Structure formats: C-alpha cells, structure tokens
C-alpha cells in the first residue's frame, strides 16, 4: 500500500476516534456543537441538499426514545 494512502487511512482513523471520544465522554458539548452546525444549514432559503444534511447533523429531541429518534408515540 502506498505510504500516502497509509497516512490517509491513519488520519481518518484518528479523526473518527477523536470524534467518538468527544461524543461519548463529552455528550453535552457534542450536542451543542451539532445544534450550532445544523441551525444555519436549516434556515429558510438554504438549498434542499444543505437542509437535508442539516437534519442529519441535528441531534434528536432530548425527550426522544426508541429507535426512530423521535417521540416514539406516532401512530
């Protein structure tokens, strides 16, 4: 495997590991950051693809339970 590709794989692994540690050990700041990133992406007038990404980035409601990430009470 070329050296440059090895470094790319390592960089991805390190970034993912750092994000995992952040998400699991500092969940409040993780959540706040996701909200801060998602809100500008979801403003009126933003392109649909950006809004779609914004919805993905936005965390589930604090009251969410179950698997769908929503209120778990829909019909």
């Amino acid at each position: 495997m070329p050296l440059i590709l090895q470094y790319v794989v390592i960089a991805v692994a390190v970034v993912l590991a750092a994000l995992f540690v952040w998400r699991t050990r500092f969940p409040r700041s993780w959540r706040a950051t996701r909200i801060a990133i998602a809100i500008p992406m979801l403003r009126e007038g933003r392109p649909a693809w950006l809004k779609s990404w914004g919805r993905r980035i936005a965390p589930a409601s604090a009251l969410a339970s179950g698997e769908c990430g929503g209120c778990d009470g829909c019909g």
Partner: protein
Amino acid sequence: MSEASLPRIALIGNPNSGKTALFNLLTGSRQKVANYAGVTVERKEGRMLGEGGRNYAVLDLPGAYSLTPASLEEAVARDVCRGFYPGEPAPDLLVCVVDATNLRLHLRFVLELKSLGRPMLVALNQMDAARRRGIGIDVAALSRELGLPVVETVAVHGDGAKELIRKVDAMFAAGDIDAQQVLPVQGDLHAEARRLIEASVRMPRRTARIDDALDRWLLHPVFGLLVLAAVMFLMFQAVYAWATPMMDAIEAGTAWLGHAVEQAMPDGPLRSLLVNGIIAGLGGVVVFLPQILILFFFILILEESGYLPRAAFLLDRTMSAAGLSGRSFIPLLSSFACAVPGIMATRSIQDPRDRLATILVAPLMTCSARLPVYALLIAAFIPQRKIWGGLELQGLVLFALYMAGIASALVVSWVMKRWRRDGGEHPLLLELPSYRLPHWRDLMIGLYERAMIFLKRVGGIILAMTVLLWFLLSFPAAPADATMPAIDYSFAGRIGHAMTAIFAPLGFNWQICIALIPAMAAREVVVSSLATVYALSAANDDAASQALMPLIQHDWSLATALSLLVWFIYAPQCLSTLATIKRETGSWKQTAFATVYLFALAYGASFITYQVAKALGAG
C-alpha cells in the same frame, strides 16, 4: 406490523417479584435496554411472540412498592402506567407480576394499580416456590374476588409463561382489552388484601421453614458476618483459580493475530497502528474477560439466590456507624459493577445528606473496570503460590484490594458524618425475599449482558483511545540526528516525561504517566495504553510482540507496582463517573470536591506505599 402499532404490554410489580426473569422468558434475547427519556432509569423493552403469531412490545417497568412514589424509579413506573410519561405511549395491558410466596405485600400493590382503571392481568409468579412451601392458592377464587384475570407463572421454567401468553393472546383476540371493566377498590387496601388472602389462600403453619433455618445462621450477627466474608473471599479465589486456561487461550490468540498481521503487511505506519496499537492494546484488555465473567457469575448467583438483601441487613449496623444509611447498600453494591449506575441508584435515598455521602464514596467501590488493572499487576508481581494450606496468594491480594476500597469508603463516610450538622440516622426497611436456587437461564443472560458491556467498551472507548494514543506516541517522528529512542520525541513521550516531575515520588515512570491520561476515559484503558506504549518503545519486532506482563515485570519494581495498585483504589480515573456526580448533585462544587479528595487520597496513599515499600527493599 410497525414497532409503534404493536400492542404494548407493561410488566409491573414490587421489586423482587420476578418481573425481569419473566421479561427474559417472554422476550428471550430480543430485548433493547435504554434509559427513560430525560432520566437515567433503565428502560427494558423486548418483543414477545404470541401463540397465534401476533407480536407484542413488552416493557419491563422499574419495581415499585406503591404508586405514591418514594423514589424516581417509582415515579417513572407510575407515570408510564398512567400514560403520562413523555414519549412513552400508555400500555394497552398492565401485567402485574406478584410473588405468590409474599401475597400480603404484593396484593396491596395490585389493588392500588387496579384503581388506575386500566386493562390489567395478574401474573401469579413463583408458584412452584409457593407450592413447595405448602401455600395453596385458589386461582379462580382470587380472580373472582379481585375482578381481574389471574394466571400462574413460573418465570424460571422454560414453559412457565405459556398460560400467560395464551391469556394475553385471548384478551387481545377477543377484544377483552377494551371491554374489561376494572373497578377501583374502595377503602383500606391492607384490609382488602387480607380479605382476598382469607378468601383464596391457604397458608401452611410454617411458610418458610427453610428460610427460617437458613436465616438463623446467615443473619446471625457473628456467624453471618463470617459467612459473608467467606463467600466474598471464595469469590476472589475463584477469579484466579478458574480463569487461567481461558486467559492463556485469549493471549495465544492475540499473539497469533499480531504475528499474522505482521507477516501479511509490509513495514509501515499502518502496520504499526494495527500491530503495536490496536492488537497489542485491545488484546491486553480482552484477556481479562474470563476473570470479569467469573466474578459476575458469583455476584449473579448471590443476587438470584436472595442472599444480597441479607448481606445489606448484616452490614447495616457497620454502615450506620460509618454514617451511611442502610439504603446506601444497594447503590454501593451496584458500584462494584460500575460507579455510574451506583451513583444513579442513590435516587432511592430520600435524605439528601445520606444521598450525597453515598455518591461521594461510591467511586471507592471496586468497579469492574479496575479488575483488568488489578489482574495485570497482581499476575505480574505477586507470585502464583499457595499459602496457609492452599489459599491462592494472588486471590488473597485481590480480596485485600476490594476490602481496601470498602474500608476506605467507610472511613471517608465516617469523616463526613463528623462534619455533618445533622447526625440523625434513618432506619432500614428491607424486604427479605425467600431463598431460591438461581436459574441457569437468568445466569446466562446476566453473563451475556456483562460480556457484551465489556466487549462494547473494548470496541468503543478503548479502541478509540488506543488509536489516539498510538498517534500521539508515533508523531512527530524523531529528527535525523536523534540520540534518544523515537518515542521520546513524540507528543505523548514529551508529555509523559514532563509528568514524571509530579509522579516520580510515587515511583511512576514516564510510560505509566502517559497511560494515566487516556485512562481518564475508562480505567481499563491504562492496560491497553501500557501495551501500546511498551510495544512502540520496543527495540525490535520480537520485543514488540511480547505480552505486556513480562515487559512490566522487567521494567518496574515491586514498589512501583504496589504504588500503582493503590493509586487505582482511589483515583477517580473515570470521566463518566465525574459527569454522573455532576448530573446527580447538580453542583460543580461537589464534583470538584469529589475529584480533589479522591486524587489527593490516591496521591497520598500511593506515595506512602511506594516510600514504605522502597524502604523495605522492594524498590
């Protein structure tokens, strides 16, 4: 049928009525464990397949003695039953699980639940134990008097819930659920429970001859404590005596995998990450899975047999002398698995001062994350030999470490009590369940859950920290004119060397210092971190592929090992625990106090241990 449209059944009942055993039987392994939204009270949901192929969502609610809540668990149970809990639809059917051997207590709660007016069914659980004791229950009469369907269940037998499933199927198929008229009970619930028992239950003259005989010995103030100490002692002996073959197999598997990857890949940074980072790091932790499972096997047996509440009863006097409430026992016991649920379990302690004292000492209980650290150091530095007529010395040291944690918690709470203005004590009210033989199904499910928790940590936080540590130990590379090993020029190497200024008096070298940082995420990460640090420090591939144990045996003194063991008794090396203290106390001041006092204790005790051991010639 979508998840949301499945009929929802909630299992509710007094603690220790066998709800969870029944839940396991009904749902098998098809269960999902989470927390109730907004609070950290365990929420277990599973799928049950009816005889006609209909699927049900089954919810295992927290145990409750009453709908007038005295704890957060009881409040959650009440709100879910009423359909008031946010994000939790009201159950279509309440299955109230009652212990057939203790109807006087459990029927009162059935009557209270009945007053909700919701569709309901009573599962008369532990009927086998009731029959063995000669308790005769006329189920038809009980059902008639209660005005509710009643079915017999034996949750610990494979087919013990067939009748319940059949009844649930029938109720949903016939539309009885909507038609069921549940009339609230008027008047005194205790009196009504007594009337029901008189009308439908025939009690033997001696309901619990075996319980009484056992309790005479096991609750004896002297003999009972001796038995408790012996049980715990044997538990730790077994951890060492039984685990070795499995541990050897895992160690050999890890070494083989590391070797295979090394042969298959050309030299380079990616191979180093895989072999010296991930395989060395994770392999160093996974090897302790057998010991963790053996320890939990014993804890589950004690829990299932009904012995644990008796242990709480025995220790109540000692705990209250130390300033802890009898209600602190269960949270502190939970902390042996993990301090996080232990601290959350303090919600059942009503007195805020008792609760705070319990929260502050819970991290001193030896959680399962410490076990890999203890096991590594004991195996490396304590000789594997028998003393005093056949006792494993290593098991004895492990027992002493657990005892040191308990003794320290008692001393700390005693000191806190001296500072408290309110020195009042609160009586312990405890229901002592009947003794019963643990069932293999519940033991296996409990062990499976414990193994999954451990393996998820290995594949989650331990893997992530290992990758990050490998990066910090590998970059930046050594300069061309390097005179020291490459690792000394890395980010982590520099940090580790700087930290030795603080930790040298404890006998910690720079490798230990650097391993303590990622171990803040989880204690057992210290093992994977040491494995990675030593693998990367090795002069060649052969040395790098060695297991961690011989490396630290060669590099550390006995005084250093003892000092590190003592450090891990006290140090709050767990961010999750500190975050939970903050959440449960709602106070940064208390969190800072817990952090500072635990680190100060760790530093002081390790310092004394190291200096004394060195003076005695172990340095």
